[in-house]
């Protein structure tokens, strides 16, 4: 297991270099000037001063090498658009809310999704199944921005006196409830469907019949034999979904005015804020790599066969 972890950690280095390179190339390929934010044209001398200040008039390979060197020393450089801020500040200040939002949404999705799927499978083709799957399908099909807007409308405005949820922000626990639900509903539905399918398949296995034949109590059969063996597809999906929830919550952050990293990521691409895009992409790559690594480790715990295979 230790060797596995070490190997995976070492592998991240070339992956991150490749990510930086590709982002670098792509960002320079799309046209656009990071210093021009409005209709106003920038006089030539001012454009030159700006390029000089931010090292954009160096040859591309030098810019690339400089950037890699800075990343190696954990210096992600200054933002080209937010003139008084460094990318390090932005990450330090805005990554925690995104991480918290993503983690809470993940928790919400798992804690509601798995039992919902289990309930549906154990009562397959009966009303608990149908109602659970209606919830899951709706949760999966309705886009998060609509869920968010409806949640705000009903729980913060229309019945605001009853529920006391604010419309937006990320301060008190009340302010976190609606965004977490809005973001977690889709993955919850997905987990419910995955769990249902997987449990139905597991129930057909010989070892379940054996377990029942041994006279084990139903609760033990369900929790130890059925659920544990059904969770592998859920765990497989959980890694990328966690990465997505932490870094891809732009819409939810925008609607609920949450000071997270997703808002910066998208606005930075539109504004051609090269250093912010690069810094956040590297961060995103690291998160996805870590999430996948955690998944691999969980595999080993859930299913010893995969451990031995390595």
């Amino acid at each position, binding site marked *: 297991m230790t060797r596995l972890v070490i190997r995976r950690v070492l592998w991240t280095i070339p992956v991150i270099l490749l990510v930086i390179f590709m982002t670098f190339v792509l960002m320079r390929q799309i*046209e656009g000037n990071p210093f021009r934010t409005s209709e106003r044209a920038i006089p030539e001398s001012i454009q030159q001063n700006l390029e000089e200040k931010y090292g954009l008039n160096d040859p591309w390979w030098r810019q690339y090498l400089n950037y890699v060197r800075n990343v190696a020393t954990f210096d992600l450089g200054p933002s080209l658009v937010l003139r008084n801020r460094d990318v390090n500040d932005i990450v330090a200040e805005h990554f925690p809310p995104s991480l918290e939002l993503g983690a*809470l949404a993940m928790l919400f999705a798992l804690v*509601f999704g798995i*039992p919902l799927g289990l*309930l549906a499978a154990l009562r397959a083709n009966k009303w608990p199944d149908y109602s659970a799957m209606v919830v899951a399908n709706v949760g999966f099909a309705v886009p998060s921005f609509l869920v968010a807007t409806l949640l705000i409308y009903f729980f*913060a405005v229309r019945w605001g006196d009853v529920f006391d949820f604010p419309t937006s922000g990320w*301060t008190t626990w009340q302010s976190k409830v609606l965004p977490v639900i809005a973001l977690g509903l889709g993955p919850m539905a997905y987990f419910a469907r995955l769990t249902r399918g997987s449990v139905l398949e597991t129930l057909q296995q010989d070892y379940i019949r054996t377990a029942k034949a041994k006279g084990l109590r139903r609760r033990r059969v369900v929790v130890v034999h059925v659920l544990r063996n059904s969770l592998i597809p859920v765990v497989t999906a959980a890694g990328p979904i966690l990465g997505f929830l932490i870094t891809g919550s732009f819409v939810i952050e925008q609607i609920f*005015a949450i000071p997270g990293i997703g808002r910066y990521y998208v606005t930075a691409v539109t504004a051609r804020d090269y250093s912010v895009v690069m810094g956040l992409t590297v961060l995103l790559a690291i998160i996805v790599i870590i999430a996948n690594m955690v998944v691999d480790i969980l595999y080993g715990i859930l299913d010893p066969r995969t451990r031995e295979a390595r």
Partner: protein
Amino acid sequence: MKGAPMSITMRTFLAAAAVASFAVLAAGCGGDDGGGSGGGVIDQVIAVNWGTEPPSLDPGLATDTTSADVITNIMDPLVKLNQDLEPVPNLAESWDVSADGTTVTYHLRDDGKWTNGDPVTAEDFEWSWKRTISPDLAADYAYQFFGIVGAADYNGCKKDCAAMRDKVGVKAVDDRTLEVKLTSAQPWFVQQSAHHSFIAVHRPTVEQFGNKWTEPQNIVTNGAFRLDRWQHNSRLDLVKWDEWRNAADVELERINGRMISEGTTAVQAFEAGELDMTAGLPPEELPRLKDTPEYAQYPGLGTYYYGLNIKTVPDLKQRQAMSLAIDRRTIIDNIAQADQLPSTGFTPQGMPGFDTFNPASPWLPESGDLEQAKELMADVANPAKNVTLYLNDSPGHREIAVAVQSMWKELGITTTIKVQEWAQFLEFLGPPPDPSVGAYRSGWIADFVDAMNFLELWTCDSGNNNSNYCDPEYDRLVAEARRTPDDADRFEIYSQLEEKLVGEGGALPVVPIYWYTYVQLERESIKESLEVNALNQTDYTKVVEVEPEA
């Protein structure tokens, strides 16, 4: 499978649900709300929406209206503009302009003070302006100072910069006298100095903290309000500074500011009582909100226009026909919806001298004139039958473009709409524009209060003339206007310029659509005293919270 499994799974499910709710709810306990006053208590504390994170609170570096709105309330400008956009004394109690118009001398009050106790002096301004002009700061708005002797040279210097810095025509004659030498008579200079770029910064603070000087723990200001809290992309709160020179006249105690960029959320936050003011309104909400008592609307000094590429649409009659075909009234009433004013010239209403220079263009009838347009089109020998219209992907532009597309279709023109993402769009327009550009959407909002700021867009070498229009006579008139300090004489020249653009015999490189308005929701308790000026700024020193009339 009967009975038992049901109860097990149900119990597991409920237990899980309980754990989940607890986890979700407990996760973020603590933290204070610090939200709006919305509940209707008269405590001179208001909750506003800045709309977005201000990109910079450094007067030298800020280029956007959100930053400007905050900066002008925490800092003390030399002059302010009144509701009629005339300059009025502020930190400068008076100013003199030399007979030839090239020297402006500001006389500062003696009670200006920084929050650390230092007095505000003319040296502060000299240092700050030269800092903004310097190539090292690389400020976008350095060009605001290019009317000052030596400023453009210093900004573009490659060597001997220190010597060039000394040649810049800004000089603190003594603690309270600031002398500015201009390259020509610029009658708008005093108005222009109300712009946030001309605000002084506190030198020791800037030198000590570098680009972190605007953080709340470092910043030193000199305005009516202090920066109390700035949580990036979340909150920015201002509090009245009791030691400000005119603090006795300021009623508001506190401005709690949120940064809700999603228009619909801001409206919902207003309706839930979390905000006292929204900062703009999304067009789709306008029909519902327009008749509420909280709706407020202000004229803006800006023009929404379509540019025409003279090379792609070379025939003047076709450009006249395309302009005539546009029904501005329909666009405003059904799409833009904020009671914008249909343009009758390029420079917007409200600009000083408007009555003199507005051409009341025959090519811009409010509801269009399709018949005349068709007649003109019929005379065009080689009409450009296929026109590509470029726009950026912000809300509202596409809908207007689709309407214009159908209006131009009546003339037999097939319009292809190309929507581009902002940065790409700007690159595409040049100047010179990409040859495929037939028409493009754009807009212009005043930097300073003089029609020059609009009309100089259309000179041959202007960085904002994306139409390929180039008339040496037009350029000559612009240069002449720059040299003309007398308002009446200058407005006459502006009249000729407007005529050349969109008048009877105008070249129509541009088809103005409407003049902007600013709309927002305002709590009735502050509506009476709250004013947004034509540059989209609010002076919070004038705002008073009162018991609304029943």
